[in-house]
């Protein structure tokens, strides 16, 4: 059972990593326009030279 000493922190760390990514994606506005995101995937973005 002593392996849990390592496993639990690892599990928590990975979870927190995911949570961190989620918080980042919210803060950078990725959930503000879900409809648009669904359509933007169809765009050919070669000619967007400035971004």
């Amino acid at each position, binding site marked *: 059972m002593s392996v*849990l000493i390592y496993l639990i922190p690892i599990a928590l760390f990975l979870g927190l990593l995911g949570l961190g990514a989620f918080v980042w994606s919210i803060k950078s506005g990725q*959930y503000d326009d879900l409809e648009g995101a669904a359509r933007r995937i169809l765009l050919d973005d070669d000619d967007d030279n400035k971004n």
Partner: protein
Amino acid sequence: MEPATVSDQPDLGESLSTEGFDHLARREKDGSYSLSVMVRGVHCAACIQKIEGALRREDHIRDARLNYSTGRLSMHWDGKAQEANDYVRTVESLGFGVVPYDAAEEESTSQQEERFLLLCLGVAGFAMGNIMLLSVGLWSASSEIMGLATRELFHWVSAIIALPTILFSGRPFFRSAVKVLAKGQTNMDVPISIGIILTGAMSLFGTINHSEYVYFDSAVMLIFFLLIGRYFDFRARKHARSTATGLLSALSGFAHVLKDSKIQRLPVRDLEEDMTVRVMAGEKCPVDGIVTEGRSEIDTSLITGETLPQVIENGSHVYAGTMNIAAPIQIKVMKRAEDTLLADIIRLMEQAGQGQAQYVRIADRAARLYTPVVHSLAALAFIGWLVFGGIVWQEALMIAITVLIITCPCALGLAVPVVQVLATGKLMKNNVLVKSGDALERLAGIDTVLLDKTGTLTAGHPALQGDYDGNSLRLAASLAAHSTHPLSKALAGSYDGALYELSDVRDHPGRGMEAVYKGKAVRLGSRTWCGDETAPQDEWMELWLSVADDKPVRFTFSDTLRADTAAVVDELKNGGLTPVMVTGDRQSAASSVAQACGIKQYHAQQTPPDKYKILEGLKTAGHKVLMVGDGLNDAPVLAGADVSMAPGSAIDMAQNAADIIFMGDQLSPVALTYKTACFTQKLVKQNFALAVVYNIIAIPIALAGLVTPMIAALAMSGSSLLVIANSFRLRLKT
């Protein structure tokens, strides 16, 4: 100013159309500028690319981003504020409409709220996942296998994850509970908050006292599932709100104001009494006013329901929302005097809005029944076990809390929002925008449909009827092609052969068109100007064609029904609804339309107050009424009806007053929306039934004190998933 210069105006109007946006540009801290506008006509991915691509090719633009869901374009550039106008022109030249938008503040609070909910949801999801990881171990291994120390460790780790999560992610419920409690009322969030807090506290207590079971997983799971429902609910409401603000921003468009013989663009809401406003041909009058310059025709169909354009000249009154169709005019702004038509209608609308406020949503009705039951059950469980069960108070309290948790309305919290989000999403794909959250619920309960005629049952524009001599028709169409008058457009549109070459084409606003063909003067216009004044009058709209001294030829027009009107009316009748037509138009026009689409009851020549009286009559007789209309004259009825729909071609005020807006040339969305609403309501009721059945099974187990954390978790997620699965049947049904 001379009338002559007035008619030169269209050119000037072109160059004016993008001025004024520089005032709206915001200066950022680093000296750059940003501007948010509403873009109209965006409907596909290619539009996003066209707009953003074109803007990004401009030199100074740092970023341009179009929010597809809200139609909002935000631009950010270095340089001068005036460049805003160039950028707007760039977008307009691609064929999109640009409308100023300044509800930025409201927008950002709603966005913050959405982010806050998402953040809470994310944290709860993270916590739930990690606690479950430990809980599964706790459930599957007895303490003999696991060892007491490991169990304690698991409990403590769960506590460390769960307690901050409860404090963080529970805030949406705590806030709402505190708010209603402060008002001395209660809602579903009160038992939820009590349940969550008590569970957390008791579990902590249990952890400290080496108890066998702790309920951190249940508390966090409860928060997670309820937040999903909350987030869906918020999305639905936000969507409704952004549709509404989009419409409002159209009202806050620009007017061309003449000041010191220069033309300025001013936002409509900044117009003041006695200002002179120029209204181009093809533009809507922004305000009520009196014509001071020019002679033209206006289309008042949206206000009066009258299909024929009316001639206006010096001194005529024009109303906000009427379309100027023939020539540029100048109007003097009248303040909303108490006796204007608009003021009447606004007053009626306010009155109507007050009468409608008492509607209680089914979810709230359920909560009102539910909360007292849950609270008293939990209290009973506590007292019962303490007095008759002979156990210590901690255990009795734990049982009371499990009752609270297990009856906590996860499924109830999801029952309405999930169905609603799915239904509004489905309707949106069919070009129906649902503006208010409970519109579908109200729609499902109606028994009578009030239908406006012009622009609702009919397409709202006239079409040529009858057969004519080929040569006259060709000549008339050739002349009509030069005019923007609705009758001329209908005439030109009905002829698809080659047109004659005409010379000296002249437009006489309010009378007709004149030109020279093969040396003869040709006139196309009103009866008094070039027609036979002795000819018998009938109900049709008409144009007369006269060639030199020949006998004039009469062309008649009627407002055509939308292609599917009769079918839709039939469908509504089959659904058990009574269609009633109300119109401001003449008796003869009304009866023929009513007959053509199979409506038995109709009321013609109704003023806006009359229409409202009909509605009130129906409501006092106990009917639940759906109003479908597009005009200003319908606005009070739209606001006062139990639920209302307006076509996308309706004036802004009608769209604002309506709960649901449908796009396109067809009436079929009305029937589709009604059917969807009925099915939605059926699903909501089924969901409630599922939740109740679940409670009937779960409550006795909880009261008996037999619920372990695993049973609580299974019961909760099971019922929630069942409700979600049931809601998705809406998707399956096309």
